[in-house]
């Protein structure tokens, strides 16, 4: 089994149930949330999630598409990037 680790960022106008909608969708996609944090930045709701899943069960593209669909439905900006990038840039 290969674990895929990704950083998911959600940015948009604060609204009721953002966390619920995103985590619900991630659960459907079989993505386990390992860390979550949120803040208001320049008046925008900003949430960051660290997610991981089994690469063999669900492909990256599927998760990405699932989140893009959610972004369209909710008007939020949702991005997903594999975590290794952040490690490479920020850690020695």
């Amino acid at each position, binding site marked *: 089994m290969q674990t895929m680790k990704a*950083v998911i*960022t959600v940015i948009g106008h604060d609204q009721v149930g953002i966390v619920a909608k995103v985590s619900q969708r991630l659960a459907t996609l079989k993505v386990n949330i390992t860390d979550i*944090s949120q*803040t208001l*930045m320049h008046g925008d709701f*900003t949430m*960051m999630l*660290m997610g991981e899943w089994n690469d063999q069960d669900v492909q*990256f*593209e599927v998760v*990405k598409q699932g989140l893009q669909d959610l972004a369209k439905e909710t008007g939020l900006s949702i*991005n*997903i*990037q*594999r*975590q*290794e*990038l*952040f*490690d*490479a*840039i*920020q*850690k020695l």
Partner: protein
Amino acid sequence: METKQILDTIQMISEEKLDIRTITMGISLFDCIDSDGEKARQKIYDKLTTSAKDLVKVADQIESEYGIPIVNKRISVTPISMIAAACHDDNYVAYAQTMEKAAETLGVDLIGGFSALVQKGYQSGDRKLIASMPQALSETKRVCGSVNVGSTRAGINMDAVKQMGQIVKDLSEIDPVSCMSLVVFANAVEDNPFMAGAFHGVGEADKVINVGISGPGVVKRALEQVKGESIDTVSETIKKTAFKVTRMGQFVGNVAAKALDVPFGIVDLSLAPTPSQGDSVAEILEEIGLESVGAPGTTAALALLNDAVKKGGVMACEHVGGLSGAFIPVSEDSGMIKAVEHGNLNLEKLEAMTAVCSVGLDMVAVPGDTSAETISGMIADEAAIGVINNKTTAVRVIPAKGKKVGEQIDFGGIFGYAPVMPVNTNSPAKFVARGGRIPAPIHSFKN
């Protein structure tokens, strides 16, 4: 990982236009040599289309999964003057067409290596290749060519300098925009992933992945946080930023090399601008404290920038190579364009700047009536700066056919547009006509 670090990384990519400028696959064509030109070209096409068949796919996948824009996918090949020399063809345009066809099939943006190395003299293939350049480069869209006319070890081949002035002029008469596909080098490097000067050197492996990074916007944004502080702080800030940018290049190169099962060569630590706002090397220099690029102090600020980028980047990756430094192409940098349009930057100052950064007079438009000898003179000056200072220099000038100072020429996309710059009109014709070779400088004798 801390939230701040994640946001910092995302901001670098989304707002500050950090990107991978190019993933370039270098491919050796030595095993394609054949005395029959047709056969050689078929072997070249086959080798290119098999070796790089997944290049675009892998790059697109990296872009999607890691969220890093990869602006260009490119190929560099062994200088065609060496590969084609064994065949009996009199002109090598067909080789350029084969390269074009392969690039088109693969979906890569550019393919470099329609090149010759003549710093000390010509072999028969060099002569034919250079003569083919105007037709080859004007009839293809993706093919890039370069000619190395000097090196610190060999001196400057003034016959080649003379000929290249004429070739640039001839190419501009057919199609001035094609001049952006032709670079004249001194001290050309063998692992450069950037175009138009990329070729796959003879000392390279069969295949290799090289990565060129970008990111002037990230450096500028970082410097905005240290306004008014001492130059030491400026240097430290650039180093730290260059480190992060380079780490990304190293990471992407590793991922791409692994996915393609090709060895990872080098990261080219260059600050490569694009014409979009906020992606400009000129704006970094202005952020350091110049009213406009071109002001007295510009050369010093650029020297500092160039050096700090290298120092920051060197530790961030396994192997540094290519040109590595700050690029100052006029047409591809909105700040440079503005400075030229406002009369704040002239060719002479640009030339001085090329003594302290990578490359040279790059994407500079000159009046259409500029003579071949004048262009040769510009090439000789740049080559001298490179040869004497042990660095790469290049000339990529565009004689804008039918245009005068103040008018502009458009290249489209990431290549931008260039205002036509005035050139000193005193003629170097007799100097250029002498031909021969400027001997290698005394400090090149190191053995």
